[in-house]
């Protein structure tokens, strides 16, 4: 039973790491690319209400990135705890 448990724990551990790596290497990169493109767009806008909306959009994307980062660190933490 102890061996089986160890095998299951190792499986969960590697699955968590796989998900964390995908979030880190793909999802976060895509969101960061989005943030850069929003900044490029901002430099082309002239109307303050448009810029204000874009700032909010960029802030939203930044929050999403922060949450994904938090999730990555939680996944890695719990993988280490197993």
């Amino acid at each position: 039973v102890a061996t089986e448990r160890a095998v299951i724990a190792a499986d969960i551990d590697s699955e968590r790491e796989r998900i964390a790596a995908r979030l880190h290497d793909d999802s976060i990169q895509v969101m960061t690319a989005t943030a850069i493109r929003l900044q490029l767009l901002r430099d082309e806008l002239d109307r303050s209400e448009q810029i204000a909306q874009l700032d909010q959009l960029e802030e939203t994307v930044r929050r999403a990135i922060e949450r994904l980062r938090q999730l990555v660190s939680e996944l890695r933490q719990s993988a280490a705890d197993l």
Partner: protein
Amino acid sequence: MSTVERRRRVSVIVAEDHPLFRSALVDMLKRRPDLELAAEAADGEQAVHQIHRLRPDVALVDLRMPRLGGMDVIRSVVGAGLPTRIVVLTAEGDQATRDALVRAGAAGCLSKSAEAGTIADAIVAAAAGRVQQVSAAPPEVPYGLTQREVDVLRLVAEGHSAPGIAKHLYLSPATVSTHLKNIYRKLEVPDRAAAVAKALRGGVLD
């Protein structure tokens, strides 16, 4: 003619394995009249090959890439005595990694979440021989100002006119005037002098 127009453009190689992130960086470079894209690389091996072949002024290099990482690229370029300066982008951004990169010869080290303008400025600074480190988490700016607005504010404090600021930051004068309006609104001040005074008091500018 301004000094920027007279200066030669800085040639840059972009080495980043994620295609969407790489294409965002490439578009950022293309919008800067002072920068010019020499080549793109999807991994460290391609980056080293292209740096040796094209000898660009600067290589913008991801720390983590397949085959060779950013650190390997630095070692290869520094080891071969090539003039190309290397600016590294990191997702992790812990201080120990950044210190190690700069010790190995990186001309700059920035977080991937740094603003587009900051990354472009770091490339220009690297080409000019300056070393720059920008921390992972962009520092919290008081009054909810964006980094761009702080850049504008700093130039105002240095006495630049709105057209001068536009030239400096490669923006249209209308965009600068919008930035100024937003700055006044956020700082709750009526004009430039009051904005600068409040920014200095509030620790936005040093």
